[in-house]
C-alpha cells in the first residue's frame, strides 16, 4: 500500500513532466527541485516563474508554489502557529483553484488545502488550552481559517462535530479561567455562551447541558461563600434571591436536561443531588443519593477520594 504523502508527491511529479512540460520550464524546474527536497532552490525558481507573464497565468505554477511553501511549513514551521509559509501556501493554492477553470489540478490542490485546514484546526484546539482574556480571539481566528479552507477543500463536509468540539474546548478553558479568578464573571458568561452554542447545534449533548448547570450552580455557591459575620440580614435575603434564580431556574433546568440524556452518569446524578439539596427538595435528594449508591454498587461509577 502506497502511503498518502508518497502518492501525493508522485502525482505532483507526474504532472510536472507531462502536462505543462513545454510551457512551464521554470515551474517544472521548481517542482523537480522540490521533489529533491532542495526547497530554497525550488523557492528561488518558483519566484522566477511568478515573474514570468506566461507561467504565472497557469494554475499549475500556483499549485507548485503552494506545494513548496507547504513542504517548507511541514519541515520547518509545523509548530509555529504564525507560520508565513503556511499562509503563503494557502494563498497560492487558492489562486491555483481560482485559475484552474478546467479542473486540471483542482483535486490535488484541494487535498493540499485539506491538509492545511487540519493544521489550522489543530492550532485552534491547542490554543483553546492556553488562551487567556487578553488573546481569546486567537483560537477563534485559527478556527475560522479552518472553516473557510475546509469549506473550499471539501464543500460537503459537515462541520457540526468540529464546531461542537471547538466550542466545548473553548468553554472548558473559559471555565478554567473563571476558577482562577471567581471575582470576574466574564469567563463564566463566555463559557456559558460556548456551551449554549453546543446545545444549539446538538440538543443531545449531555456534557454541555451539565457544564452549563455547573456554571450557574457554582456561581450561586461563590455568592454564598461571601456570606459572613458582616452580612446584614437584608443582604442575606437578597443574595438568596439571586442564588435561587441561578439554582432553581438555570442550574436545575440544565442539569435535568443532562440527566434525561444520560441518567447513568455519576457526575450528573451527583449534580442533581447537590442542586436539590440547595433547594431543600428532600425527596429528590434521597432519590438521587440512592441512585448514586446504585451506580456505585453496579460498578458504573466510583466515588471520589476523600
Amino acid at each position, binding site marked *: 500500500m502506497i502511503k498518502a504523502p508518497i502518492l501525493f508527491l508522485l502525482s505532483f511529479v507526474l504532472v510536472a513532466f507531462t502536462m505543462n512540460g513545454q510551457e512551464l520550464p521554470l515551474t517544472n524546474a521548481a517542482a523537480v527541485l522540490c521533489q529533491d527536497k532542495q526547497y530554497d532552490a525550488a523557492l528561488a525558481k518558483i519566484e522566477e516563474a511568478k515573474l514570468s507573464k506566461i507561467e504565472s497565468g497557469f494554475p499549475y505554477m500556483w499549485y507548485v508554489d503552494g506545494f513548496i511553501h507547504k513542504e517548507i511549513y511541514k519541515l520547518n514551521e509545523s509548530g509555529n502557529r504564525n507560520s508565513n509559509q503556511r499562509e503563503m501556501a494557502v494563498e497560492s493554492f487558492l489562486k491555483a483553484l481560482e485559475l484552474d477553470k478546467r479542473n486540471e489540478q483542482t483535486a490535488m490542490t484541494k487535498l493540499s488545502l485539506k491538509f492545511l485546514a487540519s493544521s489550522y484546526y489543530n492550532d485552534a484546539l491547542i490554543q483553546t488550552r492556553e488562551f487567556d482574556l487578553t488573546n481569546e480571539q486567537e483560537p477563534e481566528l485559527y478556527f475560522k481559517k479552518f472553516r473557510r479552507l475546509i469549506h473550499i477543500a471539501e464543500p460537503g463536509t459537515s462541520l457540526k462535530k468540529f464546531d461542537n468540539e471547538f466550542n466545548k474546548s473553548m468553554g472548558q478553558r473559559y471555565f478554567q479561567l473563571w476558577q482562577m479568578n471567581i471575582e470576574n464573571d466574564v469567563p463564566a458568561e463566555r463559557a456559558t455562551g460556548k456551551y449554549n452554542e453546543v446545545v444549539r447545534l446538538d440538543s443531545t449533548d449531555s456534557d454541555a447541558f451539565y457544564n452549563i448547570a455547573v456554571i450557574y450552580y457554582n456561581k450561586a455557591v461563590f455568592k454564598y*461563600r461571601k456570606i459572613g459575620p458582616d452580612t446584614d440580614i437584608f443582604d442575606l435575603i437578597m443574595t438568596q434571591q439571586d442564588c435561587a434564580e441561578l439554582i432553581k431556574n438555570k442550574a436545575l433546568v440544565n442539569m435535568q436536561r443532562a440527566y434525561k440524556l444520560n441518567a447513568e452518569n455519576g457526575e450528573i446524578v451527583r449534580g442533581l443531588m447537590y442542586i436539590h439539596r440547595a433547594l431543600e427538595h428532600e425527596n429528590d435528594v434521597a432519590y438521587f443519593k440512592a441512585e448514586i449508591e446504585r451506580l456505585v454498587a453496579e460498578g458504573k461509577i466510583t466515588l471520589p477520594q476523600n
Partner: protein
Amino acid sequence: MHKTYFRLIILFILLSPAFRSAAQGIQSDNTVAMIRANYLYQFANYNNWPSDTKNGKFYIGILGNTDLYEIASAKYGAKPIGNQTLEFLSLTNLPQATYLHVLFIDKAMKNELPRIVKELKDKSTLIVTNWEGALATGSHINFKNIDGSIRFEINKKSMEDKKITPGIKILQWAIQ
C-alpha cells in the same frame, strides 16, 4: 488516502486527553447550612438575653447536623457576641452541664423536641428548628424555605416568656 490521513489527524486530537470535554467540577458546599449558619449568628447578635447569661462564652448547640456545625464554627466561631465569645457545640444529646443560649434542632431529631422543651423549661435557651409546625410545639424560631430562599418565622411571645427579647432586625425580617 488523503481523506483518511486528514481524519486520522483530527481523530488523534479529539482522542487526546487534553481535548476530551471533561466534566467541570461542581462545588460540593452545603449552601443551606451556609445560610442557616449565618442566621444563627444573626440571632445571637440581634436578640437580647437576660443579664445573668452574659458571663462566659455564648454557646450555640447544634443537634443532629454536622455540616451546619462545621460551617458555623469555621466561619463564626470565636466571634464576639457583646462581651462574650461565640462557641458552637456539635450535639447528639442535650448537655446537662453547659447552658446553651441557642439550640438548633435539625429535622432529623424532631422527635426530641417535646422532651427538650420540657428539659429547658426554666432556661433562657432560644430553640431554633427547621420543619413545618415546629413553632406550635415549642420552637421559638423556625426556618422555612420559600421559593428556594431560607426565611424564618418566630414565636415572639414564647421568646419573651423565656426572657429573650427579639431584636428589631429579627422582628423586621421574620415572615408573618
